[in-house]
């Protein structure tokens, strides 16, 4: 029964249609994650969503410059580098969003006067970049062993002109959409940590996208759990 749904969803995904909020048919693209692939950073992860790929490296808790130190918690820094050209304002704004999400979950008070640096490198961008960055950052923080109160994941939804909801859109779908909404959700109660939206939508559409993102986040968290189970299966 599940297999049928699988192939059905694949076919529909191939055709490239989204789904109406009423019927099932939204799907997340193919996911892949590799952890601990870099030798220098304390933790690293490469997260792939379809053709979008982001590499994250985490250093921390480590020495912090006196000018940046906070007396009672860790200083979290996020650096996002685009693939082509120099980083600009869009990267700065994404860095801030990711940093706010990480600060909400990382237990910084366990490591005061230290720095935790998350460096993200865009390896390829084919839609849902911010969500992929959030997922890569979370996996890298887990790999580095940074204490967190919950895991977090990013999910992107796009609303096209007739109100159809598409989860995990490709760049083509994002361009043609009327609104693109990205949410960061935590793993404990699937509460909203961060939201970044672009475009025009009504408040009922916002709540629908949020509910859809919460449903999608279950899959992402299951993916996290299974990948970590695999990793620690031989110890």
């Amino acid at each position, binding site marked *: 029964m599940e297999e049928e749904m699988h192939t059905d969803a694949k076919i529909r995904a191939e055709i490239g249609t989204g789904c109406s909020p009423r019927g099932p048919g939204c799907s997340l693209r193919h996911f892949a994650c590799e952890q601990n692939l870099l030798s220098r950073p304390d933790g690293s992860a490469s997260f792939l969503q379809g053709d979008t790929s982001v590499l994250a490296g985490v250093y921390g808790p480590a020495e912090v410059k006196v000018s940046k130190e906070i007396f009672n918690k860790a200083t979290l820094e996020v650096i996002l580098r685009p693939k082509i050209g120099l980083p600009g304002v869009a990267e700065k704004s994404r860095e801030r969003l990711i940093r706010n999400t990480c600060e909400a979950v990382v237990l910084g008070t366990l490591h005061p006067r230290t720095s935790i640096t998350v460096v993200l490198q865009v390896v390829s961008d084919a839609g849902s970049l911010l969500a992929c960055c959030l997922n890569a950052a979370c996996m890298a923080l887990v790999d580095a062993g940074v204490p967190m109160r919950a895991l977090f994941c990013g999910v992107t939804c796009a609303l096209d002109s007739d109100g159809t909801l598409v*989860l995990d859109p490709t760049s083509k779908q994002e361009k043609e959409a009327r609104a693109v909404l990205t949410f960061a959700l935590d793993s404990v109660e699937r509460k909203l940590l961060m939201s970044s939206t672009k475009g025009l939508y009504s408040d009922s559409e916002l709540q629908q996208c949020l509910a859809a993102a919460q449903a999608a986040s279950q899959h992402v968290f299951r993916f996290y759990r299974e990948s970590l189970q*695999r990793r620690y299966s031989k110890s």
Partner: protein
Amino acid sequence: MKETPLSNCERRFLLRAIEEKKRLDGRQTYDYRNIRISFGTDYGCCIVELGKTRVLGQVSCELVSPKLNRATEGILFFNLELSQMAAPAFEPGRQSDLLVKLNRLLERCLRNSKCIDTESLCVVAGEKVWQIRVDLHLLNHDGNIIDAASIAAIVALCHFRRPDVSVQGDEVTLYTPEERDPVPLSIHHMPICVSFAFFQQGTYLLVDPNEREERVMDGLLVIAMNKHREICTIQSSGGIMLLKDQVLRCSKIAGVKVAEITELILKALENDQKVRKEGGKFGFAESIANQRITAFKMEKAPIDTSDVEEKAEEIIAEAEPPSEVVSTPVLWTPGTAQIGEGVENSWGDLEESEKEDDEGGGDEAIILDSIKMDTGVEVSDIGSQDAPIILSDSEEEEMIILEPDKNPKKIRTQTTSAKQEKAPSKKPVKRRKKKRAAN
């Protein structure tokens, strides 16, 4: 972060091992580490792994006006970035020496050797040429950055396809990848850098030093060569003095190594080409080895969003309606407007504030304080009215200084002049002024 210094015992250990012709990873003196090349879904994107050193390369193109003194040639731009994830010591502003050295070497190797035909990048002479931009990002630093970067650059350039352009008289048509297949760049030869590390004043030599070996080396010799045994660039740094036959020997070794590496590159490019033509899966997702325990894949997952509408309606029904916000704009002067009242003034009682001002400043301070308090008072009056209120912007210098608890009776102006006329002020204020003058 500061670079952790290498301990003396580690340094001695490495040098003694090199003297006995042993390397820590078990390689021979002239052995290269394993080179692994993987391609992404876009053309011109590749990741090269030289042992654990990892470099990401991406080529992009853009139509621009040519340089004035080279009107018929395209422009090449190389940029190597040492990402902060490559090593903890790579902070912006801290690695400038190394960065400049690597970038310059890369430019000499690729641009000055004329490996890419820039004449073929010209579209309309003097007006439009292609600018090819190669961005390299070092992702992990385990020694020998320059070799990995040069391999990544040349692989990315060979892999890249630029959009097809056709010129008919005055008309230039740029075809999208859907309309016409993109065209590869015209590359004459593939220069590849080979690094040699020297130890004990040139006595011992190692090819492809890793990070530890680089830390204890005396000097580095980099030879960029192509498979036709033509030297494209040669650079010796570190101040070591090499004999002529040492350099010649190194160039012979480089010739052998470059031939092997070029063969590897051509095979990788051919494989990728074949996979794309046959319609198989390509990209970084495929290069993640399935057998690794640290890697995990999940196929497309369908999400059931059938109850999304009902959930949303529930949430909206339960939520409180948004509070009514009435915004009445107030226009202070042309160009300065105010919407809303803001929070209560938390500066406290400004009249009692112990500001240290000199005489001239003293008056200003008082006036400023009053103005600030005025703002708080006036707005509350205005808020009840509907129409926007325009305050007088006449240039009269008359100022009325008001007590904070009384309603404003006169409209006061913004004074921008440094010299302020003593307006007919109320007595308590005058007294205050005198006090400060006494101070």
